[in-house]
């Protein structure tokens, strides 16, 4: 395998509604920043790929206008996934394995505020049995949380988890929710959809992020401190929610095993869990114990630009390695309803 490293990462601050900015205006500063920090001249980047979803803005081929942010002239080699940017990163990683190019730009953007995101997300369900019922994403999150609680967990665990994430988010300048909450205050709050309290749910977020991958010796020339991708894998579970045990995440465990995440001792871990119980499910699937700092960014629970929130997890983990805070990290991204698809990667510091 060809060694590939994350050399730079940039993200916007997540906001409830980036009203005056369109997607390109939101994206452009982060793309420019990621490229500038990578040390790779823009015109030398070998591959460009994005992750986004046309359903978010209700505009067909919305990702094409996103290319305005990149400067696609003279023509560039470019691709897109209708998924979270973490899967775009996976395609870029595979592309770099071909060996003929050394660098790739990966970016993603999402304005979740343009439609009713909980309704929009219901349309990713199977089109015959579930989507026509319009089950909103918060209700599905509640079903999964109930399933997890019934498997032998308590709301007090969620109270601790939410409180800890908020503590981390309070020092993250890119986070949307930064207000602290103690476990007692959490428990005293009413349910919005039982057993979910408002703090168990992600905010509606607009945001964008970009990172640059560089392979082999070319990466070593970029910087003295890089976040090498030591392993990466993604797995998917059945589309139908009825055939899955929602209290566990089999696909995360499989992806974690295949990329080596289950065999290493990570300092930090960034898990893409829009709902609080999902974070606990993912921790269990990856065998994360208390020695690992989970979601030092505050996680998707505090800033959730849909389609970017997964790539942000990888970027956050890589940034902490690059700045020396951590040496080994696990980063995870999810897509689909109730953790249907999961991507796990292991990042390690070095030159």
């Amino acid at each position, binding site marked *: 395998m060809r060694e590939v490293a994350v050399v730079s990462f940039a993200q916007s601050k997540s906001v409830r509604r980036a009203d*005056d900015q369109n997607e390109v*205006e939101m994206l452009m500063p982060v793309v420019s920043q990621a490229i500038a920090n990578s040390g790779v001249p823009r015109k030398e980047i070998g591959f460009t790929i994005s992750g986004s979803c046309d359903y978010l803005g209700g505009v067909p081929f919305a990702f094409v206008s996103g290319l305005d*942010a990149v400067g696609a002239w003279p023509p560039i080699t470019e691709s897109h996934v209708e998924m979270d940017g973490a899967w775009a990163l996976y395609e870029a990683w595979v592309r770099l394995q071909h060996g003929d190019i050394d660098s790739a730009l990966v970016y993603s953007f999402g304005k979740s505020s343009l439609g009713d995101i909980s309704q929009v997300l219901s349309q990713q369900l199977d089109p015959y049995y579930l989507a*026509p019922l319009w089950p909103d994403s918060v209700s599905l999150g509640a079903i999964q949380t109930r399933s997890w609680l019934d498997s032998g967990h308590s709301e007090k665990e969620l109270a601790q988890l939410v409180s800890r994430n908020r503590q981390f988010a309070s020092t993250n300048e890119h986070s949307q929710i930064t207000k602290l909450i103690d476990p007692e205050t959490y428990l005293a709050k009413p349910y919005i959809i039982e057993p979910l309290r408002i703090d168990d749910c992600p905010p509606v977020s607009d945001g964008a992020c970009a990172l640059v991958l560089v392979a082999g010796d070319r990466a070593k020339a970029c910087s003295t401190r890089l976040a090498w991708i030591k392993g990466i894998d993604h797995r998917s579970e059945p589309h139908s929610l009825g055939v899955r045990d929602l209290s566990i995440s089999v696909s995360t465990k499989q992806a974690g095993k295949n990329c080596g995440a289950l065999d290493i001792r990570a300092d930090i871990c960034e898990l893409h869990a829009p709902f609080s119980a999902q974070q606990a499910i993912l921790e269990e699937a990856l065998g994360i114990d208390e020695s690992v700092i989970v979601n030092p960014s505050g996680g998707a629970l505090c800033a959730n630009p849909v389609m970017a929130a997964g790539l942000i997890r990888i970027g956050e983990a890589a940034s902490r390695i690059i700045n020396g805070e951590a040496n080994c990290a696990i980063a995870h991204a999810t897509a689909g309803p109730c953790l249907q698809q999961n991507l796990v990667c292991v990042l390690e510091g070095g030159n």
Partner: protein
Amino acid sequence: MADVEQSEIDPNAPVTKISTPIELKYHFTAGRAASRFMRGLMKKKILGQRCPSCLKVYVPPRGSCASCGVPTEEEVELPPKGIVTTYCIVNVPFYGQKIKIPYVTGTILIDGADIGFMHLLQEVEAEEVRMGMRVEAVWQDDSEMVPGLESIKYFRPTGEEDAPFEEYKEYV
């Protein structure tokens, strides 16, 4: 379901079609650059933006230069005049048509701009429209002004000499 209908359904026939209507509502965000352009039109101003890298002027502005991938922050006010770079004569009647056919839709390259936009040509016979023809905007009445290109009622010939092809060949 009435008995008579049920008896007509073959219980062993495969279901070949279901109908699941989808309706989603969205707030459209024009963006900063396009918003300034559209508000400018209400004041009878055509506002473009110049790319700091390739110096091309975008009208309407997109907030970015698609070629260079950099923000276009310098605003440029352009005159409501330009040339027809290309056009088509509409002869096909369609539902909701407001203008009597035949009429002409053209790509108008505003003086000082590097990208054209489509608009209507009037006060000219269809067969008289030609590439390089110089045109000017005719604005809507003040009470009809909206934040959009509809604030320009149409373009009409100025009667000036046509622009030579050399002048606009890169924009065709």
